């Protein structure tokens, strides 16, 4: 779907999306990384469970909600990647513990 135009070189970090290791560039957002994945969606909605992908990329639409290191409902477009970060596609309603 999307691809990076340049090679980040030494600025590369590794994050884990649903357990799969993915390379990313330091400083870019989780949502940008997710848009490059073969699985296009990043969450399912809380009522109809329909899949959603990052959309506005500026913190408005809340379509890119993900859980990061166990903390739920973070906006992927406003959260920069960190090396070793564990991202989970949020499915339906959050449970109280995550």
């Amino acid at each position, binding site marked *: 779907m999307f691809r990076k135009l340049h090679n980040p070189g030494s600025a590369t970090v590794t994050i884990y999306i649903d357990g799969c290791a993915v390379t990313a560039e330091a400083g870019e957002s989780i949502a940008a990384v997710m848009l490059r994945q073969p699985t296009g969606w990043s969450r399912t909605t*809380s*009522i109809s469970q329909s899949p959603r992908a990052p959309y506005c990329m500026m913190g408005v639409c809340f379509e890119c909600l993900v859980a990061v290191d166990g*903390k*739920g*409902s973070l906006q992927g477009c406003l959260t920069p990647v960190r090396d070793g970060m564990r991202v989970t596609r949020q499915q*339906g*309603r*959050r*449970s*109280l*513990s995550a």
Partner: protein
Amino acid sequence: MQPDIVVIGGGTVGAAVAYGLAMRRQKVLLLDGDDGDFRAARANFGLVWLQGKGLDMPAYQALTRSSTELWRGFSDELEAESGIELFLEQNGGLAFCLGEEGLEKRRLDLLRLHNQRGGGEPDWEMLDRAALERLLPGVALGPKVAGASFGRRDGHANPLRLLAALHVALLRRGANVRHRARVNRIEPAGADFRLVLNGETLTAPRIVIAAGLGSSALARQVGLEVPLRPERGQVLVTERLARFLPLPASGLRQTDEGTIMIGATKDGHDFDVSTTTEAAASLSRKTTEIIPALAGVRLVRHWAGLRIMTPDSYPIYAESRSHPGAFVAICHSGVTLAAVHASLLAEAIAEGSLPDTFSPFHQRRFDVPQAA
């Protein structure tokens, strides 16, 4: 169409009365206010609630009990009439108690209410922490929670859907609704009433004033002094969560949509629906003392509404003695009492007079002689 009856006020109270009248084949015209008006129906918490209510006013306890008993039938009928689901649950409700002292105080408060009731089986019981944990298997309670009172008749429903359903159903039953219809003046017109609106005049043989905080000025014109003041209630709501709270609690409930409603403050007596950081902090603190894991959940909205408070906090249902055919209906628990408003109250108004069961709620209880 000349209406049999005009209901002034399209909030939860006025709409329930108008719906009940329309179901009784009255030709009803409902006059609803403006979007910018103070509308208590915006900040309803959605509890259908009995426990703890009616101290020093046994008639209110009895009225509330009747309404909780009528609610299931009311909900079934209204859902069928409107096609809108109300998500009523009446599996009981909780009031969490912090510390052993808090638990004991709650027990004494409910016992006092029970004694004032004068007979009947208690419809509540006290739960210690172990019993409470058995009732809420998925919930990790905070260390200060000593237990809770459990009210068997308590429950909750979706208050926004309730209001929408009432409006849909009364239209389907032939009632008319006028929005942004502000009544500026009420005048007698023979045995009828003339209502002066902006640019229009209506006439009806009977009227019901259910205009919330706007009721005092209208009621005065038909000879009823109705003392009212606003009481602000601030409410918080969280993002949607998977169902974990099987029962509603006083000030804390999980809605059918998964959100957690937290509330409500009693923190102001002005015509002011702004929100305060202090309230957000105190409501959040109170809630995380009960369920600490909620600290990690996102709040999505914080808003406020104004309760309609009489001097003793209890409702006013009255017909004017000087202007027969003019009724007032005012209260702050419009959701709980909706079942009574749509049945017993609407029935009485349709028949033309309020029976003795409503007499404890007449406004004359506030009339004070000017000189001793």
